[in-house]
């Protein structure tokens, strides 16, 4: 029988993963560590660094081509028939593992309220950072005039 896969009440799976991938590494690790207690018999299938090739679409002819590779760290863990996955930029294997722990906890329906709150909090921090960045960008808006 395929186990039921849990979700967060306030965030889609893609949003949760995106927030975790960008979350502050120290906060993510501190949050994820206590989750291990509810994941007995956890199996680590992958925890490694590697590369992800990043393609781009050319706007002149529409061709897809490779820009170059990005260093990432990846973790794949399993417990009770479900997998948890983490992939983040950089070489912090512990942070990728922490991401996978949150993913697995949510999938198994364990500590869901705490995970939901953590994602909500990190999403707000990231949105605020983006907002501030874009206010600074907007300050450079230029209205060109020709004479």
């Amino acid at each position, binding site marked *: 029988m395929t186990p039921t*896969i849990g979700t967060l009440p306030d965030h889609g*799976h*893609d*949003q949760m*993963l*995106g927030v975790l*991938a*960008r979350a502050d590494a120290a906060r993510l690790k501190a949050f994820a560590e206590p989750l291990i207690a509810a994941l007995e018999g956890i199996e680590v299938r992958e925890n*490694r*660094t*590697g*590369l*992800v*090739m*990043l*393609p*781009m*679409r*050319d*706007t*002149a*002819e*529409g*061709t*897809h*081509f*490779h*820009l*170059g*590779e*990005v*260093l*990432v760290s*990846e973790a*794949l863990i399993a417990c009770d028939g479900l*997998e948890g*996955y983490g*992939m*983040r*930029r*950089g*070489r912090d294997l512990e942070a990728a593992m922490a991401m996978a722990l949150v*993913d697995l906890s949510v999938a198994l329906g364990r500590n869901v309220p705490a995970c939901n709150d953590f994602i909500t909090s990190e999403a707000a921090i990231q949105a605020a950072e*983006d*907002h*501030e*960045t*874009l*206010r*600074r*960008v*907007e*300050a*450079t*808006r*230029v*209205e*060109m*005039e*020709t004479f």
Partner: protein
Amino acid sequence: MAYVATRGGERAIEQSQRLFRAEMGAITPERVAELRRALPYLIDRVMGEASLYDEDLAALALAQTGGELYEAILLLRAWRTTQPRLAVAAPVTQESLFTHRRISAAFKDIPGGQVLGPTLDYAHRILATEVLEGATSRPEPVEPADRPAPAQQPSVAAWQAANGLLSAPRADSTTGNDIPDVTREPLLFPAPRAHSLQSLARAETGGVLALGYAAQRGYGQAHPTVNELRLAEADLRVTHPRGTVFSAGRVKVSQAEVVSKKGSALGLGFAATLGWNEVKVIAAATLDLNAKGAPKGSATEEEFFLYHTEGVESSGFCIHFKLPHYVTFQSSLDAMRDARAGAAGAAPSKQAEPAE
């Protein structure tokens, strides 16, 4: 090809490497972190040419080589080969970029407007010599606008296509490992466009600038105008084992379109690279614009500019000339002496060489 093996230099080689590294002193995590923090544009340039995006690794490579860029990029390209490729991300589209800078020299009123972003384009170039006398130069803080700029901006080229100025690009259904890749296949000519754009993305900045500048000065067929220049961040969109596509983080990218009138229509050249490096993408887009129909052996011919802007190959070939070539050079000398002797009507004579 005849090279001679050198023998007996082991100690000298060891000491020469120590001498090179002695100038730099200890490489510490603090030094690497400071390089990353203080030199973002150099870090970007290194990541683009290494075709490997990671600021910490780029800073480490710079620290380890004392800023000898060719060595730093070679280190990174070599290190890259130790890593498995885990995935190919979804293709980045222009409209999805988190945009920090977007300007056009062709149209002042582009849809979405123009934001200068971080630039010294309009700055006075004055060296802050007071720092050398003990002062601290602190940048004036940005005064943020009340409202944010839109994170995503529309494509100028799409707007031009909608207005009949350009042909709309075709859709490309090639994705993942099916996209041609010069790190896994030889570069052959005529090159697939994907190979050409990938090679320019990882090309050496100075080489691309030299050849792009030659085209801009008149050694090409088309004079470029920057249609759109962007400095932005792109999401690295990967797939979870259960199929969910998500962003594993953002990376800085630059992209440029240059435009020129070709007959009764406009022609568009394109280039992009990892990191923020606008000189490189404008020069590379100029080469792309000029490549079609370029004369054989000209600076704007694809084979010419792609081969000669590959930094690791070209710097490696250049510096190999300083390695021992004693046998080949002695052979040249023998041939020269024989020719001279023949011209003088005398029989070639055997001369003892200093190395013999």
